[in-house]
């Protein structure tokens, strides 16, 4: 235990800001997960691996001399087709089955992706340099890397863009209709198969954006996907499906929670504390639910 963070107010501010910026990025990944979970009732364990794959796309652009920030445009394009491909190959066969089968299937995809990325890109830890510099506040005592600010900004833009798209476009309406009641939508002429493929593609595209941002703020590695899956799962559990403001709030909350856990408990408990929180929330939800049931009885 280390309470230095509370003795130095600047550290508290630093941790909060870091957490919020980080949380916005997490929320973007979680939003994709919530979307396809809500529409297709599939929990995608391979979410984090799609993120990492998106990161590699930006990294390769960087190697070819293109600024990695362009990755946020290119990566979702490529990832959209990767997502649709995965849907056509695997997900469409498990979409109506129970949750357990879809978890197994996406778990398999996750392992496959990890190994393929390792095989194709090597096991080295890599990163792309944006050269964005740093914003310094309060006489240099709080530092915010511009790449993190850039990430949060881009994440917000994509999230808003998606919300508008869902509200206004034909496909967006079809997706929302399918999420509400797939059978009814089908009867009313919505091609649900197409909607599912597009939803999975959009989710992968969001992962692509997030991955490109992660490659310029942190590091990427074929085996680093799982923590991102866990975080987005956690955010969606807390926020509930189809609740975008909730996803954004719980994303930022998780970011700040992680940063504080990092300062107080130590970096080694950072991911561990997320798991712990997840267990606590699940137990709490179950407790609340059982109370409700009793009441009904």
């Amino acid at each position, binding site marked *: 235990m*280390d309470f*230095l963070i509370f003795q*130095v107010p*600047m*550290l508290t501010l*630093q*941790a909060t800001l*870091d957490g919020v910026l*980080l949380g916005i990025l997490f929320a973007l990944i979680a939003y994709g997960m919530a979307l396809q979970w809500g529409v297709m009732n599939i929990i995608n364990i391979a979410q984090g691996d799609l993120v990492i794959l998106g990161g590699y796309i930006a990294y390769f652009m960087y190697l070819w001399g293109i600024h990695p920030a362009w990755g946020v445009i290119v990566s979702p394009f490529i990832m959209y087709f990767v997502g649709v491909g995965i849907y056509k190959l695997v997900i469409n066969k498990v979409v109506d089955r129970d949750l357990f089968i879809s978890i197994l299937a996406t778990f398999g995809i996750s392992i496959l992706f990890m*190994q393929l990325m*390792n*095989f194709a890109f*090597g*096991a*080295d*830890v*890599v*990163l792309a*340099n944006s050269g964005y510099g*740093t914003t*310094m506040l309060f006489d*240099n*005592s709080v*530092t915010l*890397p511009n*790449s993190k600010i850039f990430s949060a900004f881009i994440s917000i833009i994509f999230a808003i863009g998606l919300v508008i798209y869902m509200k206004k476009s034909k496909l967006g309406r079809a997706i929302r209709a399918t999420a509400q009641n797939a059978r009814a939508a089908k009867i009313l002429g919505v091609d649900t198969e197409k909607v599912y493929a597009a939803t999975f593609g959009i989710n992968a595209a969001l992962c692509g954006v997030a991955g490109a941002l992660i490659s310029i703020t*942190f*590091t990427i*590695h*074929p*085996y*680093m996907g*799982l*923590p991102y899956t866990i975080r987005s799962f956690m955010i969606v559990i807390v926020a509930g499906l189809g609740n975008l403001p909730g996803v954004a709030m719980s994303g930022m909350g998780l970011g700040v929670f992680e*940063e504080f856990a*990092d*300062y107080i408990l*130590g*970096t*080694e*408990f*950072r*991911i*561990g504390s997320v798991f712990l929180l997840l267990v606590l929330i699940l137990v709490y939800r179950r407790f609340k639910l059982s109370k409700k049931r009793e009441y009904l009885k």
Partner: protein
Amino acid sequence: MKINKIILSFISAIALLLSTSVTSFAKVVGDKIVLGSAISLTGKYSSNGVHTQNGYNMAVDRINSMGGVKVGGKTYKFEIIYYDDESNPKRAAQLAERLISQDGVEFMLGPYSSGLTKAIAPVTEKYGVPMVEANGASRSLFTKGYKYLFAVLAPANLYLDVAIDLAVEKNGGKPVKIAQAFEQDAFSQDVRLGILEAAERTGSKIIIDDKLPKELNDMAATLAKVKAVKPDVLVVSGHTKGALTAIRQIAEMKVDVPMLAMTHCDAAKLSKQHGKNSEYALCASQWHKSLSYKDKFFGGGMKYAADFTKEFGYDPPYQAAESSAALLVFKDAFERANSFDKKKVRDALAATNMQTFYGNIKFAEGGQNVDKPMVLFQVMCNADGSKCENKVVAPTKWASAKLIHPIPSWSDR
């Protein structure tokens, strides 16, 4: 139906092919000494696994082309059987078992990483098979009383303690304040032990002692604390990802420390990935090409580096150099033992006292090499940061450049 038939015949053809091409190996076949090694060609250690394999192969070719190994008046050539351990300790132990009991290998070369060496050592020990390893530095390998394990490299606890001595020296002999962050794996924790000992020896104080997780990619919290408490030295060890993350975030957060010491800068290709931001970092290395050790097979370090680059197309990291040295040790031991008896070879290995291009090699009771100090190099760049080089700054005997201390603050860089 037809397709089924085709598939069936294809599979049986492959099965036939496999069954005919399996030949039985033994320790020494004709004029060949067969060594075995489980090595990480896939999985998370695959890059360093390949460096290790390249190092082994280069030494095998060189020794074979320069007269081979002379035992009992006859000349033998080295040959290595490799299996891919998939960076998985369990698999590595199985493969060691297979190499020894099925393939009849009686002399082993080590895998990559402390973890995998730890998995294999009990197997080689059980069969009394001498193993010379070049990539397992964890101290715990050398405290278990293994009799058949020999490591050409210096143990992990010696990686960075030199840096603490250096910091104390620069501080006018007065104790220093140390901030440290180590990953929680066998290797990094051993590096940490070395620092703790050095701190005690010099009376220095450890003011931050963070542990880093395996899935590390953000150490902003540690660095913010470092910024707040202003230590004299910051020590980071968390393999490649630790080195890369630390440099990125130190530069982004403008953390000023007088001295920054790390491991795995070579493997992280630090200066290549980070350019001028990596400047002034001190890095522990088992070997550097500018060291003046010599042997008759590779000449010196510079010659080795040039030959290696010619053959494999990249600068040799120390992982490759130490792997090559392992073969030189085996050759020397076979010739001194003048026999292929495992026990005799083991005794000859234990009595090794030689110089290779990689450094002096002499094994302690536990099997670790005690005759080769670690070197520290500092990343130094030219004015516009377009070219960065690793220059040895300690120990003084091999220094090719003077240590830049303290590191200029970010506002002046």
